[in-house]
């Protein structure tokens, strides 16, 4: 069936669309890990939370666009609150403490959403203007999914310029390279980190809103995606934009094509990609920092 060029092209577009969603979550997780060595598994909870906020906004009569404009900010605000109240306390306590704390937050987040909204999945309608399909060289492809691909590309380009061409970007790169030295130059890396954390949670929130019309909103949607996002980060390499982009594409394609070629073993395809990458490149494909022995 892959020999049918129309079917193949459609699956490529589906892969791209899923890759963009993974990217929106992966970039925040990766840079936070790269900059502060912080493993924040509750990143997915923010994604789920934003999806519920979007659902609530549309229930109250707001449009999808209103939800897309507001919900990520609410998510970033809650993310920062979580950071200053809880996450910061185990900043220097190592990965185990961070995993314990953030997995705890995952459970609490899931239960809170369950209490508030029930077990059943909720829907968020696509915006009317994107309800149709676009004819792309003979393939009818849903406009909304094309919009997702475009949104992902815009975010990638914007982040590239922010990281490579702005002072904040240079501070982030310096912090990822060598945090201790950046501090000897008078740079408050803690403050840079809080800002990066806020941007990362904002983008996870954007991911939650745009995923809602496709996958629905349900308790546990965070765990489903965070596992894939973790694999993206590990495969791409920590702390780098290029790594997050490449990792998202690899996993997005492996997941989509895995489901077509080997429906029973779709998840295996992803782990196979990860195992292969880690065998030959233990630090991932494009890590920001070569993990050397020097401090």
């Amino acid at each position, binding site marked *: 069936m892959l020999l049918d060029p129309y079917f193949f092209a459609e699956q490529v577009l589906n892969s791209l669309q899923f890759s963009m969603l993974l990217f929106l979550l992966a970039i925040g997780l990766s840079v936070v890990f790269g900059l502060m060595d912080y493993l924040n598994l509750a990143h997915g909870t923010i994604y789920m939370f934003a999806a519920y906020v979007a659902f609530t906004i549309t229930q109250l009569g707001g449009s999808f666009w209103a939800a897309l404009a507001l919900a990520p900010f609410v998510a970033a605000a809650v993310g920062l609150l979580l950071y200053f109240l809880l996450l910061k306390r185990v900043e220097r306590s190592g990965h185990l403490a961070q995993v314990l704390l953030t997995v705890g937050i995952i459970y609490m987040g899931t239960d809170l959403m369950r209490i508030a909204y029930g077990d059943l999945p909720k829907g968020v309608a696509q915006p009317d203007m994107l309800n149709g399909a676009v004819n792309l060289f003979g393939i009818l492809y849903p406009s909304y999914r094309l919009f997702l691909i475009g949104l992902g590309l815009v975010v990638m380009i914007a982040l590239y310029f922010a990281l490579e061409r702005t002072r904040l970007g*240079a501070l982030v790169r310096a912090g990822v390279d060598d945090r201790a030295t950046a*501090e000897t130059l008078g740079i408050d890396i803690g403050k840079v980190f809080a800002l990066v954390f806020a941007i990362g949670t904002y983008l996870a929130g954007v991911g939650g809103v745009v995923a809602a019309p496709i996958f629905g909103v349900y308790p546990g949607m965070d765990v489903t995606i965070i596992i894939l996002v973790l694999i993206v980060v590990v495969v791409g390499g920590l702390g780098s934009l290029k790594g997050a982009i490449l990792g998202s594409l690899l996993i997005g394609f492996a997941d989509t094509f895995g489901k077509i070629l080997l429906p029973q073993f779709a998840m295996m395809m992803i782990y196979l990609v990860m195992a292969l990458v880690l065998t030959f490149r233990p630090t991932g494909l494009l890590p920001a920092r070569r993990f050397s022995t020097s401090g």
Partner: protein
Amino acid sequence: MSNALLKLDDVHTYLGDSHIIQGVSFDVPAGKVVALLGRNGAGKTTTLRSIMRMVQPRRGRITFEGRDLAGMPTFGIARAGIAFVQETRAIFPSLSVEENIAIASRKGHAANGWTMERIYEDFPNLAQRRNNGGTQLSGGEQQMLAMARALVANPRIMLLDEPSEGLAPLIVRQIADIIMKLKQAGMTMLLVEQNFAMATAVADHVIVLGKGRVRWSGTSEELRKADEIRHTWLGV
């Protein structure tokens, strides 16, 4: 000394269980160059890292302009006016030469302000390579970049950790010239060196560290005559 800009008073620092700095006290007077000499493992770098609070001293006081640095974060100490040029030079590989300097640039304290323009005038090599990646530079250029990065913060004092290490003799002379010029311009410096000739040429005052303690202190002239001290604690 009453005009001490930087003052260490009975500082003790441990790395793990090792007692590296065992009660070090000395002053760096404003406008002077003080050299900290000693063999490998004498505790020179750990002394500088204690001042920057990259390691936490367990006992003792470090004051800068009369202000206790205890409890201050490293970036706060840098902003207070202490610049640290590390032995490894610690150039950021993901940043261009220009970005390496730009992120450190601050108004700081000095009246004769260092700006990017002035850095490029005084370090023409760096101007030529401003768009290069930080780690594409030679060792000597990296050292100059590390010093430039410290200067644009316009500090009151510079801590220099072995600026001559691993460099060819010609480059060492260039670095020594830069340090000499800074000294003439009134920059206060605490210089850690293995290069005895260079250190004693630029320093007003020398402190000899051995096994975590101050073993001797005096002028460069006095140290040249103190054969016993040099043999025992410096091996020269």
